[in-house]
């Protein structure tokens, strides 16, 4: 018997008992639908987190701080004052609770030391600049903040291009709301204009710095309503803002940003971080900074998926039951086919194919339903209560994951079909023909 004939025959017998097949298919549809939706949630949210990670920083970057010296701590955990050590406020804590903390400062000497390390490609001070206002031409002046921009990070842009940290040009990216407030009808209208930023130094003198607006960023979890500056602009602003400060204050930074090769192996990164620990530095990757967030999402998806898995196991038993009944009903037919020379292996193939086809029907219908309903729901939510999070598609589908679900369910159906199919294959033709 040819493979095409086996498939055709299996498909045909699937539709012979329509009610029974439909009920089994419905059970699979429910499982497939659930798993498609939960997978869609996982895909959508994780894609959003990935974009957000890109906005917070690249994955070949470490934020380095000095390990706090706890030797002068009292039993209560309060540190004694030490006039020798310099401390700065670190605003650069990861998003979430914790806010700012006082840390031991990184100095230019530390930066030099970090640059000497083998795997390190670059080490830059990370400084906080606090502009007073932003102004386009002689337009209205607005309060403005600049977020710490980690080298290699990608922002979600509404217009323009990403910052270039190797450039000597003073580059600025402004948030979408500012583009509108500053008088640009379209975000793209702001790109290419020159903005004036003001900073006040320690002696209360205001300095103006001119920067090229090269992009307009979307609002998202990673990039809040703050602008971003490249290294050249940050340094220019910091230099102006530090006038009048003592030498120590000017060269004390909350943290440094260390970049390593983007193709560095996991081991070499571990080695680097161990080395940093030995030298008295703490280091954090961007994914660690948002790691907890992601593991919560993964946990939720896992729980939802296990509910779907339970539905699929139940559907699997439905397939076993349906096919056992079918084998029983077709006992004589099986006996006849054996008497006419069909091998047990082909009979096994015939019933397995039927099981797989039932699985395919159920999973295809379930996936299509899931995609249609999931996309519709996601669209409504994005336009409504999730409207503030630009770039978030709550339930997203990739062809690979949908195909994966269908293949998985067909595999479950195959496994469920083996028991009835083996039963059919092992039938003795005479017993089958004598069967009433």
């Amino acid at each position, binding site marked *: *018997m*040819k493979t095409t*004939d086996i498939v055709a025959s299996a498909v045909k017998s699937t539709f012979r008992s329509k009610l029974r097949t439909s009920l089994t298919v419905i059970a699979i549809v429910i499982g497939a639908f659930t798993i498609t939706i939960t997978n869609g949630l996982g895909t959508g949210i994780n894609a959003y987190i990935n974009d957000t990670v890109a906005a917070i920083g690249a994955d070949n970057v470490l934020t380095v701080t000095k390990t706090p010296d706890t030797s002068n701590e009292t039993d209560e955990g309060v540190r004694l004052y030490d006039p020798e050590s310099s401390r700065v406020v670190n605003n650069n804590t990861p998003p979430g609770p914790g806010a700012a903390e006082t840390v031991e400062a990184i100095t230019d000497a530390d930066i030099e030391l970090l640059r000497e390390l083998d795997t390190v490609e670059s080490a830059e001070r990370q400084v906080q600049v606090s502009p007073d206002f932003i102004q386009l031409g002689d337009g209205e002046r607005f309060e403005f903040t600049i977020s710490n921009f980690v080298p290699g990070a990608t922002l979600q842009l509404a217009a323009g291009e990403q910052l270039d940290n190797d450039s000597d040009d003073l580059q600025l990216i402004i948030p979408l709301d500012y583009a509108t407030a500053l008088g640009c009808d379209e975000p793209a209208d702001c790109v290419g204009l020159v903005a004036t930023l003001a900073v006040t130094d320690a002696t209360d003198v205001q300095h103006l710095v001119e920067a090229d607006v090269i992009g307009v960023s979307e609002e998202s979890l990673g990039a809040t309503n703050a602008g971003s500056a490249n290294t050249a602009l940050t340094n220019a602003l910091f230099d102006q803002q530090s006038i009048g400060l003592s030498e120590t204050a000017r060269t004390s930074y909350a943290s440094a940003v260390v970049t390593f090769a983007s193709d560095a192996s996991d081991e070499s990164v571990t080695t680097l971080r161990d080395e940093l620990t030995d030298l008295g530095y703490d280091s954090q990757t961007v994914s660690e900074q948002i790691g907890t967030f992601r593991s919560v999402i993964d946990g939720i998806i896992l729980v939802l998926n296990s509910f779907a898995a339970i539905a699929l196991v139940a559907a699997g038993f439905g397939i076993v039951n349906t096919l056992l009944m079918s084998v029983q009903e077709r006992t004589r037919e099986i006996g*006849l086919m054996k*008497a*006419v*020379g069909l*091998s047990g292996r082909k009979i096994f193939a015939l019933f397995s194919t039927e099981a797989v086809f039932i699985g395919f029907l159920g999973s295809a219908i379930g996936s299509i339903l899931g995609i249609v309903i999931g996309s519709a729901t996601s669209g409504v939510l994005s336009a409504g209560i999730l409207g503030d999070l630009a770039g978030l598609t709550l339930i997203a589908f990739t062809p690979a994951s949908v195909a994966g679900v269908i293949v998985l369910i067909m595999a479950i159906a195959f496994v469920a079909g083996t028991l009835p199919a083996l039963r059919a294959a092992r039938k003795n*033709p*005479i017993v089958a023909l004598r069967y009433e």
Partner: protein
Amino acid sequence: MSATAISVKNLTKTYGEGSGRFAALRGVSVKAELGESLAIVGKSGSGKSTLMHVMALLDEPSGGKVTVMGQRATGLRSAELNALRNETFGFVFQQFFLIPGASVLENVMLPLTIAGVSGRERRRRAMETLEQLEIADKASNRATDLSGGQKQRVAIARALVNGPSVIFADEPTGNLDSATGEVVEDILFTLNREKAITLVIVTHDQTLAARCDRRVYLKDGLVVTPKELTS
């Protein structure tokens, strides 16, 4: 001397275990020569069907020797066994055994489908066989919608379609009225005469048995003489 299609020697067949043990065949030796028609006659429960099933390699004997076309049956691999069932043998049963829901044409094509013959070729051969049996006009009907006589003709077409050398028929007229039964008998004997197909017919109908070249009488799992059968 003509060649032997199937011969069985000292055949025994027991069913069950212990106290439920039952010997359906108790040392039967029978030969079917190529091209002849052989009737297996006996009362109900005498072991006729059991004997036929063993001769047709559908069932394994408990003891004895089966030779098909000069080949020992016990050493056959399952692929060879399936090829014999598919190409050399044809079966006709009292209860027709047509696949319900499938069309007449599909039923007749079954042995060819199993043999892996291509769609167009098997359709052509099945239609040819249906025409030969004069029921080609029912080809697209559902098998279950036919009358008994028509069903049996479809069953014969199915047995015939792959050009067998032996046709086994178990009470082929048992479910038919005498007029229809006679038509079916005529078809079988015409095939025997014109195509030299060996017939092995199981029956308890004396007139059908009388039309065959040779008769074997069974009683309680043993071959007996016609006199012993009625005693």
